[in-house]
Each structure stands twice: as C-alpha cells, then as structure tokens.
C-alpha cells in the first residue's frame, strides 16, 4: 500500500507536478505514514532520478527546476508534521545565495541554487542586487553554513571582497564558508579575496559546496 504511494510520490517529482506532490504528501499524513519516510522513500527518489538524468544530459533544465519546486511543495506540506514529531529532515547544509549589490544578473545564481537544492542543500535565494548587510544578516538569521555570491560585472565583483572583509571583521569565518562565481570571476580572484572556493558552473558549485561542509563523499 505505502510502497505504491512512495512510487507515486517519486513520479510526481519526476513529472514536476507540485499539485500532485502536495496532494500525495497530504495523503501520507492521513495514512499516518511517518513524514521522514515519505520524504526519503518517496519524494527524494524522484529528485535523485531527475538529478541523475540531468547529469547524464538526458533531462533538461525546466525538468530539474520543476522537480525542485514539486519537492519544495511536498516538504512544505510535511514540515508541520515533522515539527510536531520534533524531527528534522537532514540536509546537506544551509546556503544563502545572492547576486551582489549593483548587479542584476540572475540566471547563473538561480541555476546554482537549483542544483544545490536538487543535491540536498537548503537554499535561501535572496535574489539580485543584494547589499552586504542583507546577505550576512540572512546567513546569521538562518544559521547558514555557506554564503554563495554571484557577480557578473567587473564593477561589482569588488563587492564580493567587501562582504568577505565584513565577515572577517565580525569574526564569522571560518564558521560560515564563502563561495563565489560569475562571468569575470577566476580562481585567482577567489584566492585574492580569500574566498573559500570558486566554481565556473553549477555542477562544480555543488561539488564545492559539499567539500565546504565536509561532505565531499556524499
């Protein structure tokens, strides 16, 4: 009975169907299925499948993004139950993501966020044009392990350094790790501003994030 439901759950993620994944999550609550089981034996299987397909070049970005949204919807439905039971879903870690102040390039950052979410990170995407205090404030608020900053302009990449300097001043590192990326960003730049890591694309960003939280082998 519940096996059949788990299968449907995985499929709802693969199909990127948020309505259905919400409905199935609701149903699992009514059936008294432990919410963590619904996630790990049901929905996550679908996320992993799409992730693998994407890695193999078979799935396209909209499939990945929609799977992510369906997953989010399901987890949101189950969250109150988890809280009631005092359980927490184990995640890879919390990440605050933003494009720096003065810069409105969005797509690259969003893709990094999508891939991180698909890989089990809890991502808070602040959007574009974000000043240092907002980024750092959010990281403190949600107890993030990583701050990820995107900058696509040579005139805004300096903001990445400003955030890092501010964090150092407040003694927030190495507890919170910093990773950077964007069109003009190079490894040399990342080293120069003392970032903890840099990646040229979203797949690399996931690998990097895993290393930064000490879960490189997961």
């Amino acid at each position, binding site marked *: 009975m519940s096996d059949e439901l788990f299968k449907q759950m995985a499929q709802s993620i693969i199909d990127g169907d948020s309505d259905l994944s919400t409905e199935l999550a609701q149903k699992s609550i009514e059936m008294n299925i432990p919410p963590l089981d619904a996630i790990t034996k049901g929905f996550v299987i679908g996320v992993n499948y799409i992730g693998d397909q994407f890695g193999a070049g078979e799935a396209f970005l*909209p499939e990945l993004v929609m799977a992510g949204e369906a997953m989010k919807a399901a987890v949101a439905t189950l969250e109150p139950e988890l809280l009631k039971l005092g359980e927490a879903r184990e995640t890879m870690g919390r990440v605050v993501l933003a494009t720096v102040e003065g810069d409105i390039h969005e797509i690259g950052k969003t*893709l990094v966020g999508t891939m991180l979410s698909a890989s089990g990170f809890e991502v808070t995407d602040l959007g574009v044009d974000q000043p240092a205090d907002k980024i750092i404030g959010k990281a403190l608020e949600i107890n993030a392990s990583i701050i990820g900053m995107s900058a696509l302009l040579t005139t805004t990449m300096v903001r990445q350094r400003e955030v890092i300097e501010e964090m150092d001043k407040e003694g927030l590192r190495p507890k919170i790790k910093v990773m950077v990326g964007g069109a003009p960003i190079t490894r040399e730049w990342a080293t120069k501003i003392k970032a903890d890591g840099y990646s040229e*694309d979203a797949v690399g960003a996931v690998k990097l994030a895993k290393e930064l939280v000490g879960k490189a082998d997961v």
Partner: protein
Amino acid sequence: MSHKTIKTISDPKLKLEVLTKEEVQKIHEATLHIIENVGVRFPSKRALEVWQANGAQVDFEKKIVRAKPQLIEDALKKCPPKYDLGARDPQQNLPLDGNHVCLGTDGCGVEIIDIDTRKKRTSVLQDVRDIARVADATPEVAFHWVPLSAQDTPVEARGLHELQAVWENSTKHVQTESIYNVHEAKAAVEMAGILAGGKEELRKRPVLSLMQCTAPPLGHDGGSLDAALIAAEAGIPTGFMTMSACLTTGPATMAGTLAVGNAEVIAATALLQLAYPGAPVFYAAAQTASDPRLGVYTGGGPEDFLFGAATNVLADFYNIPLSMGSFATGAKEPNWQAGLEGSLSTFMASVVMSDMLLGVGFLHGSRIWSYAEMMMDCEIFSIIHKMMQGIVVNEETLALDAIAAVGPGGHYLAQKHSRNHMREIFLPKFLDRRPYTQWEEKGDDARDWALEKARKILKEHQPDPLDEKIGSEFERIIKSVEKQ
C-alpha cells in the same frame, strides 16, 4: 588604401523574408498586449514619473508600468527614422538610413588573449587603447564598442577612462555599453560635448552613442534607465538591447521570446520619446536560445541566426535603426565553431540590412577578446559584403564578346575582359588555398596570419592625435567623478 576608408554594406541585391507582414503584425499586437496587461518594470523614479505624467498606469511600489497601446504607438511615431552617428573625424560619420550595415567591435569583455604571450589574462586600460588603434586602421570596423573592461582603473569612473582611451586612439564613432549610472552618464555627455565642440554641435554630430541592456524578462535596470535619459536629453543616440533568451529569460518558443524582448525595447524607447520627443534612438537586440541542459548564454546556434534576421523586421516596422548582436560564439578559441557562428549570424543580420552589427573580436560568449578572432571576423564581414552585392547581370557582365573570342575550348586568361574585371573577384586574406605540401612544411594557418596582421598594425599605425587640450579636459572631468 588610407585608414580613413570604412567598408559598409549598401544597396543590397540579396533579400530574405523571415517574417511575413501578418506575422510581424501579430508579434506587434502580442507586444502591446504584454505592455498593457502584464506590464514592464521600470525601477527608476524619474522613469516612473514620466510614465505617470503621460497617463500610463504606474505601480510605484512594484515599479511596474502598464500602458495603453495608443500611448506606446504615438510615442514611437516621434522616433527619427534616420540620423548619422558622428565621428571625431566627420568624414567617418555613419549614416543610419536603412541602406548601410556598419560593423563594430564587440564590447565589455573581461579577458584577452595577449597578443605576445598568446595566453589569456585579465583586461586592462592599455588593451582598450590598443584595440581602438587596430580598429582605427581596419576598414571593416566602422565604429567602436568599448571592447574590454579597463580593470586597472577605479570602478567609479571606469567607463570614462575607457571612452577616453578609445577617443585618443581612433577617429571613428564610439558606442559604449559600460556607462550605466547617473554620474558617469553626465560626465560622458560632457566629454562628448567637448569633443564635438559644444552642446549643439554634439546634437548634429553625436560622437558617442549609448547602449543599455534591458533586464529580461520584462524589466529594466534603474541605473541604465537614468543613464539613457541623460543621454537622450543631450541628443546622444540611445538604444535598449534585449537579451531575452528562450527558456530562461524568455519563453521556450522563438515567437514568444521575440514578443517579450520587443515589449522591453519598445516600452523603453517610448519612454525616451515621452521624455524627449524626437531624441535619436535605436533598437538593439542579442537574443538567443539558452542551452537546455546548461542554461548558458553564449550566442550562436540556429535560433540566434533567425533572431538576427527577424529583429530587423521589427525595427523596420517601428522605423528605427537597429543595432544587432552578431558574431557571438561560445567557441573558446578561433575555430570551426567561431567561424560557423560568426558567418551565419552576420549573414542573417546583414541580409535584412541591420544598421549596426556588434561585433568582431570575442570568444566564449562575449567574454574573451582575441585579435586573431577580430581579424578573421572582419574577413567574414568582407565575404558577406561581397555576397550582398549579388550577381550583376548586364551586357558587360554577360561577356558575350569574350565568350565568342574564346569559343569552345581554350581559356579566358588572355582576355581584356578578364583584366577589366578580375579585381572584382574576392581576394581572401586568410583562406588557405596553398599547395598541401606548403601547408605541411609551414604548419601555420589563418589564425597566425590574422594575428600577424594585428601585430603589424599595432607596430605601425599611428591614429590622428587627439587635441591635447581636449585630452586634459577629459582628465579633469574624470578626476571630478573619481572624487565624488
């Protein structure tokens, strides 16, 4: 050939119908529907006030403007259909009259393949000077886009240092994409005015034009809007470029992405006309399809080529000049991919007579400058230039006398007719037509020859110097911006 010659495509013989009249009308109507019902984001106080004063529906909190079709259409009617881009040397002014395709360098890159070490490195001010000098001596390049970011100059006035560097090293028109805030825009207008010889002279001979990106989908950047308004006020030609790309910042389908991009561009163009009726404006676009697996935007690919032709049909529909992205490539070095993407995009944008093409010299999705790529891109443009002349059919070109004189058999090498016309045959600089063994021995190719050509220009070419007084005025202006 003097370095004053500029090669532009005109009086084309080739034609292409990429969209029918009905299709253009449909895209136009969809666009007006979007502007009226979905709205476009204008995050600039000044822009929102202009919209409100003209009766548009303005949501000041979300900064979204919704406008009735009539408002947009009436505003667009005020755009001048034709004008000239001015140059430091007035002989090099460029007519944007629908009968000239002018090629520029690409712009705003972040790295360069060093001409000596052939290694990739971060771009600096001296690169901007050097590229301007090479472009000054290259007939295919009609105008400059500030090619690279001068990363060794202070951020606050970087766009101005770049402008100065190009003006000091070339007499051709300069277009910049690197001025996107109020301070720098004001200073740039002042610099252009000094160069043109006064405010009124600047209107007549705009030695500078400004290109701003829209912020797809259906938005704009506040700094860009404010900068554009300042430029338009001074009579500096200003254009908005949409880069809305299928699948990410536009719908997956090309027609939908055209409509989204069109809404961004014509809404911003209408804004400039509402603020400054009759201001010279242009349409600009570099649309493409995002890679469905990587999401990357590099330019190139069949969608890109079709957009290149379709956009000019839209710009013609609104009767304003077009600046079209071409030569965009995801190639990492000058190679098969770069040649393919450069040729087809430039052909498609040229065959419909886009007024400006941007531009030569870049690799890796408009990020890395290569002198070899620049020179080879110019050759592609020359080939298309030749193709656009089509085949001339008349008594002289049918050559009946020569045909009779040679008769069946024999050859045409000894004919006067051949001597008269042989120089009309395209002479490539970089196509390899040598014997195989020669290639085998030398082991070189187009890239080496192209690079050598750029090296030679850099060594030999001295552009007409800029008046020292103007140079020191520029410095004064830049200093004052740096102090702010």
